[in-house]
């Protein structure tokens, strides 16, 4: 098991954890306001492609991160229009968005580089600034959720939108804002994945990490810090899997391929019975019915 404990694996785990951590934080804030955003996977891959293409054309991976964030905000605005304004079914809408994002990014990527051409590597951002970035985001989320009126209103919109409305808060506006902010964070996570040490975009590069992020939110009981710690656990499993694939051990590498998802599933089971679930999660709010 020394492979697990080496410094290399720990850093690789951290590297793989950062995108998931950001996406999980994004998913969490909109869920706290009552909006279940199943488009996280689609947002991550959109952010990843935006980050990659921007860095490729403009040369700066930091601009790539910014592009990821902006694309996430734009997609988030579309999503919140459907989820919040129209009150569309949140599960089906998120799923449909993810399917669209997966195919649209393949399409745009295919159009950008001819077949057979090796997609160019882009400039990369090293680990330390990305770790700092994630910690800053985490701190902001913790402070806003726990220390400000805004955080309280967000929770109210997710727990009892009718009461929040009666107190004069605009539930729809709160939900729009959290959905857009959460979507931006998820897309930023995708951009971090690509503009970070990977420096490359491939089709389906996110490989279900958005779904893992959604599972982590449940695992974390809708709290920011456990979201990030859970992401690190996932990243660690992922790193072990990648390391062991190259070496010849008695255990087939497929075990480690499945491990991060299995661990997430087990974690879900452990945390499953949970009263922290926002009461109005997944329920569209309509003043006329309130």
């Amino acid at each position, binding site marked *: 098991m020394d492979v697990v404990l080496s410094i290399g694996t720990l850093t690789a785990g951290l590297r793989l954890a950062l995108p998931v951590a950001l996406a999980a934080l994004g998913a969490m804030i909109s*869920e706290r306001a009552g909006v*279940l955003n*199943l488009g996280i996977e689609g947002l991550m891959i959109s952010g990843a492609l935006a980050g990659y293409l921007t860095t490729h054309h403009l040369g700066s991976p930091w601009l790539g991160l910014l592009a990821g964030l902006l694309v996430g905000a734009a997609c988030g605005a579309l999503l919140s229009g*459907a989820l919040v304004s*129209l*009150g*569309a*079914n*949140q*599960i*089906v*809408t998120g*799923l*449909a*968005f993810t*399917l*669209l994002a*997966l*195919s*649209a990014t*393949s*399409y745009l990527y*295919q*159009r950008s580089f001819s077949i057979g051409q090796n997609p160019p590597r882009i400039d990369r951002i090293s680990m330390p600034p990305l770790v700092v970035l994630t910690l800053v985001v985490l701190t902001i989320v913790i402070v806003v959720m726990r220390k400000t009126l805004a955080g309280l209103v967000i929770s109210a919109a997710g727990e009892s939108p009718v009461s929040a409305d009666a107190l004069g808060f605009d539930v729809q506006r709160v939900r729009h804002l959290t959905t857009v902010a959460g979507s931006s964070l998820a897309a930023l996570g995708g951009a971090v994945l690509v503009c970070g040490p990977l420096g490359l975009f491939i089709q389906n590069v996110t490989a*279900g990490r958005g*779904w*893992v992020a*959604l*599972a982590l*939110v*449940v695992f974390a009981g809708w709290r920011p810090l456990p979201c990030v710690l859970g992401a690190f656990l996932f990243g660690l499993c992922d790193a072990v899997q990648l390391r062991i694939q190259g070496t010849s051990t008695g255990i*087939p590498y*497929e*075990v480690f*391929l*499945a491990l991060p*998802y*299995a661990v*997430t*599933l087990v974690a*879900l*089971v452990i945390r*499953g*019975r*949970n009263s922290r*679930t*926002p*009461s*109005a*999660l*997944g*329920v*569209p709010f*309509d003043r*006329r*019915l309130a």
Partner: protein
Amino acid sequence: MTTAAVELDPREPELIETGGSHRARHVAVLVGVPVIAVVGALAIGAVLIAQEGENPFAVYADVFRGVFTENRGLRNTATSATPLLLMGLGLAIAYRARLFTIGAEGQYVLGAVMATAFATAHGVRDLPGVVLIPSCIVIAGLTGMVWSGISAELSNRFNTSVVISSLLLTYIATAVMQWLIRVGIKDPDGFVPQSRVIGNAGLPTVPLLNTHLGFVIAVALVPIAAVMMSRTRFGYRVDVIGHNPIALRANEVATGKMLFAVLGIVGFLSGLAGYIQVAGVTTRINAQFSLGYGFTAIIVALLGRLHPVGVLVAALGISGLNIGFDAAERSHDVPSSLVAVVQALLIIFVVIGDAVANRFLRDDD
């Protein structure tokens, strides 16, 4: 994220309306929204084709020719619609019960690989098809059922979201498949990881139709599913779960068992679809076996309005788009991923159209 919060809300917009006082209007929405969605998606597709410097009308004409006039176009459309139809039927039932499983892909892969493992095992592979085919159907179906049943069990016991657990299980299923074709049931003569050829368990071709037997099985299931949903107690309960599970519990119907039954059906049909794909099309399993049919089937179920007949139409339509675009790609310069974009747009427009129609109808009431 408990599904309970989603399921228990009576005010949420309905995906499908059954009965009610505004029947004509509901039918109009039920049929009208997909029609508008098809037109909208094709229109955007046309814009994207024009972006490539191709004439959209010429491309669409070739898509049409690829399906209807080209040699084997219709046959290929029917064949590639088969897994979509089977999985779409199961998903339609589950979604009517508001159990939004997205794990059909994993059940499909696992059902295929288990049936193949059985049919290519030493001593078994020489048995005649009459014995092998039914056994494989049962093995693939049960495998899918068990895999899907895990989601039901986790949801019942631990209140785990079916959406998330079914998807996580898909990744695990894919890993199992990869190990099996690399080590477990590897073809000793192959240079890459792949299973042996399924041989005697291959499906015969149906005369006249010229498609494999699986297509006939899948189409035969459409009326069975339709009758089951509209004429039996089970179908009624599925709809009640979707609309008001509290009413079922109040009448002492075990909703946990319903969860097993519904997700079991999804799993059985998905596993079966996997076996049929091996036995009718690919003949063996390699790393490229999975083409994401399990996810496309979600589009099929929703586009088909969660009704078995609608699912049949949607499966043929989606598969026709694939076959047609494949043909059109040979003579035009369009990226192969364009068809997936058009299909995804279709489902986006249906979802948005439903939401808009719901607001609209509610305003009127």
